[in-house]
């Protein structure tokens, strides 16, 4: 389907497709859905532009949950920052507030992704390209 130039979709239909996309995000990933709804730039007249924005922003969110992105970030840390002791920086973690520590019973969260979004992200990028076609849309 990649590079398919025969796509004939009316401008109003993009609104319906956007709604369909968002309903899947909401069902599978309520946090991601909230993030999209809160932080996406909605000020555009083009439903196609909105759909492309939603897909690329959600792919970006997925990118942060990819094992590849995590390992690249850790590798870059080890390239430019020396560890105090030992041979390398072992990981990246998020320290929780005192209240969060009581709720979750731990002091920090390791950022190692528990699920790999790589294939999902790749599919979203391909979807974006298929919809954008050759009409000169910027990816981000």
């Amino acid at each position, binding site marked *: 389907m990649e590079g398919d130039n025969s796509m004939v979709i009316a401008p109003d239909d993009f609104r319906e497709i956007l709604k369909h996309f968002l309903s*899947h995000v909401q069902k599978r990933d309520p946090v991601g859905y909230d993030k999209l709804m809160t932080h996406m*730039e909605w000020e555009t007249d083009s439903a196609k532009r909105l759909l492309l924005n939603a897909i690329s922003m959600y792919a*970006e969110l997925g990118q*942060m949950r990819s094992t590849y992105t995590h390992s690249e*970030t850790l590798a870059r840390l080890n390239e*430019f920052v020396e560890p105090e002791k030992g041979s390398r920086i072992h990981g*990246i973690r998020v*320290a929780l507030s005192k209240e969060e520590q009581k709720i979750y019973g731990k002091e*920090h969260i390791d950022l190692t992704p528990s699920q*790999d979004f790589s294939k999902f992200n790749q599919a979203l990028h391909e979807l974006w390209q298929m919809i954008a076609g050759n009409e000169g849309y910027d990816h981000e």
Partner: protein
Amino acid sequence: MNKEDLKERITEIFENLFPSATEGETDLIPRSLTDGKLYEAYIVTIIAEHLVTKENFTLKLVNGNHFQLKSSPGPINRSYPCIEVYRSGRMIAELWTDIEYLTLSYANSNRRTPNRGDYHELDILVVDPGIKGYPQHDSIWLGVECKNTDYTKSLLKEILGVRRELSLLQQNRRTKFNQWPRREVPADPPSCLLVYSSRKGVIDYSDPGDFFGIDFFHEQLPRS
């Protein structure tokens, strides 16, 4: 390819490729606590790369062998890991994340106890070494905001407010840096202020930064 084909493709992607939830305690922790944090960590590596390659600084992680971010901002906690910044073997600054600084307006007030409006958060801070608690506005070398979302007008207004509470607009002053991010900035105290966004649109908002000394960058996460 028509509307229905596209909807079907979207359904396929979510049904077949969206990772299914794993069991275990990590699932109890909401993603809202960690989403966005990897982008912040990645931008730390970008800052680190520039400081090492352009300023010839040496960076060292201390107080642990894990790099640590925080789920919510607050004062400098010296029991947490931080990155020490060395120039010619001498420790000259420290890099911390998710820190609230005390504002310029608070420094110019006669109040002894800060209220909520007297702190502002920056995602990444390079500050004078040895600070405990909330750093003062004039101890800041470099502040960085990281946004892995669309960059909007409200975010621009927010960063302009942060600039206002860091420094007064002045003729160019020498920063603590020789080259990167700036040798001079139109601000006193001469702190550098940077915005990184994963979205290309951030550059559309950069013009006011030319005047006030805020640098905007588009930086995406690495992709496989």
